């Protein structure tokens, strides 16, 4: 056991997989000599050399196309898109090329690749460097979508993503890079498509993802002191989605609250609410509620950004109000 930051967990995860499998290669802007704009790839160039750790020009389409072409011909590339907002300039390669090609070729090609990206807000970067876009990826058939909330999960889920034979979108929560957590020693490999119950309660089930997980846990502590005992589920993986764990935990308490950083419309929680409504409606004691960023681009100023993204206070007050009524 050692304490590790979320950003160092990323580089440890990449190193673990590059050490294990020589076909794993890494590419992206400023990831090599500079160690990444978020310092999440520090030391990898020195350790694995310039053939396997490739600094690229500012060419997001070429980065992802290179990863795709390499994945279909025997490599296991890890591509970085620096800020998840930048997916908008290369979404064709993600949504039309990587996601669809296995299906449209009746399985002649497959794409064992990982696209990692700094996702979400909290760093006052303004609208074009802060959006949480995990719901974009979830909307595309053919992509697996993972978003870890802590350093140990970063390593375990990243290893699972690299070893997975299909394309995985790996969303690193920018707001969590500096946070720390205990990480077991040795090789870590987790399983995609598994949610985790982080806290068990009897009154309400809070379902959260990535940067919203620590906030949900903090809110649950305060709520417990006020007499509302909550379960907290970390979704971890949107595709595949562990609906069994979520349905079980929601049925057990009878109330569901999602905490989502993505903007309101068509956020991942909407899909969960629909699944819960269809499959465990009779177990509910009240309407499922979604706590999300409003349907707005993110503002930059501290006061405004803090108001936009679900805060511990907003989670507490929403749940308290709902449980009292």
């Amino acid at each position: 056991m050692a304490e590790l930051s979320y950003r160092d967990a990323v580089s440890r995860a990449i190193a673990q997989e590059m050490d294990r499998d020589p076909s794993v290669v890494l590419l992206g802007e400023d990831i090599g000599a500079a160690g990444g704009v978020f310092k999440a790839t520090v030391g990898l160039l020195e350790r694995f050399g310039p053939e396997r750790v490739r600094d690229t020009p500012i060419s997001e389409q070429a980065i992802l196309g290179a990863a795709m072409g390499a994945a279909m011909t025997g490599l296991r590339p890890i591509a970085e898109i620096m800020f998840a907002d930048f997916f908008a300039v290369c979404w064709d390669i993600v949504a039309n090329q990587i996601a669809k090609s296995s299906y449209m070729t009746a399985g002649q090609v497959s794409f064992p690749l990982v696209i990692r990206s700094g996702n979400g807000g909290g760093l006052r970067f303004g609208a074009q460097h802060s959006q949480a876009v995990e719901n974009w990826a979830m909307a595309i058939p053919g992509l697996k979508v993972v978003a870890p909330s802590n350093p140990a999960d970063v390593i375990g889920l990243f290893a699972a993503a690299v070893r997975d034979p299909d394309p995985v979108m790996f969303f690193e929560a920018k707001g969590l890079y500096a946070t720390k957590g205990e990480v077991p020693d040795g090789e870590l490999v987790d399983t995609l498509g598994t949610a985790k119950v982080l806290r068990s309660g009897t009154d309400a089930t809070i379902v959260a993802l990535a940067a919203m997980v620590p906030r949900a846990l903090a809110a649950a502590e305060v709520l417990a002191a006020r007499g509302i005992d909550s379960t907290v589920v970390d979704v971890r993986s949107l595709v595949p989605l562990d609906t069994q764990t979520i349905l079980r935990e929601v049925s057990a308490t009878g109330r569901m609250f999602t905490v989502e950083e993505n903007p309101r419309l068509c956020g991942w929680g909407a899909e969960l609410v629909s699944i819960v409504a269809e499959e465990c409606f009779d177990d509910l004691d009240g309407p499922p509620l979604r706590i999300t960023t409003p349907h707005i681009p993110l503002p930059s100023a501290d006061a405004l950004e803090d108001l936009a993204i679900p805060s511990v206070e907003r989670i507490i007050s929403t749940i308290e109000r709902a449980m009292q009524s």
Partner: protein
Amino acid sequence: MSAPTDDITVAKGPPGVDPAILHRPGGSVDAPTQLALYRQMVRMRKFEKRAYDLFLQNLVKGTSHLSLGQEAIAAAFGVAMDEKDYTFATYRGHAHTLARGTSMTGVMGELLGRSCGVLSGKGGSMHLTDVKRGVMGSYAIVGAHLTIALGAAWSAKHRGDPRVAVAFFGDGTTNIGAFHESLNLAAVWKLPVVFVCENNLYMEYTPIRTVTAVDNPAADRASAYGLDSIVVDGNDADAMYLTARECLERARSGGGPSLIEARTYRTSGHSRADPGKYKPEEEVAAWAAYDPIDLYRARLLAHGVGEADLDAVDETADSDVQTATVEAQASPPPGLDLLMHHVWSDGGSSWRN
């Protein structure tokens, strides 16, 4: 460079192209290779004419983009490439797929949406893929596959595998960002990839010269990426073949990428039943007189190849197309269970437990 002559064995150069700018590769093409080039072109031509008939009968559904008139390019690369090299094609990819040896029945079946199709009917005309023969896919978003081809080339180089990736695309593609990103990165990384622009003078319906800042949409951009400017007669199968050989060899020997601009003309419409009304009559006539198959047949005859030998190639192609048509039409539609297959590499489509 040699001056153009009246000798049929030396092409005059495509209509409207200053012969002085044409790349005239060295070397010569031996007789068996010439026959292979002729055979490839004839097979493509006859296959696509049949595909067009079937489209008009509403048997080929959706859309279909023919490369009638552009066959010399696909044939040249088909003959020049190594068996294991990678082809990346566009929605206009029938000829490029056939060029690598994919069965006519497989391609025809795909066009007709039958289970014998190379993609079991899941891809259709625009997505022909035959990985076993190096056809790594046909892509229908303009420009995207240039980036993917460079990835395959990167992978080959990284793995120490001597394969070369070849990406075919149109003149219109030179104005999209992916083209420029790909050329730059391929040049910086010195990748074994050949980018082949088939300049057929039009994007869909708009003449390329009216929307492009330079005269030669690919070749005039080459210098921006440190590459040679190559304009070649895309209707001269010999010039195309020798140019292909040259660029494949450069890629294979570590010399990095090439960008070829092949001047050609699609004598068909852009897609479907497009009558091509936007094309001036004189232009159509000039290119009709510069048809790659007519030119090549005349050249082979001038070289002493027997007419009967060429006729035999034509007849075999006719009967192959007929067989493919009959086989494809007899093939059942794809099994309905295929709908939910192949999203993931385990063959399934499950997104939840």
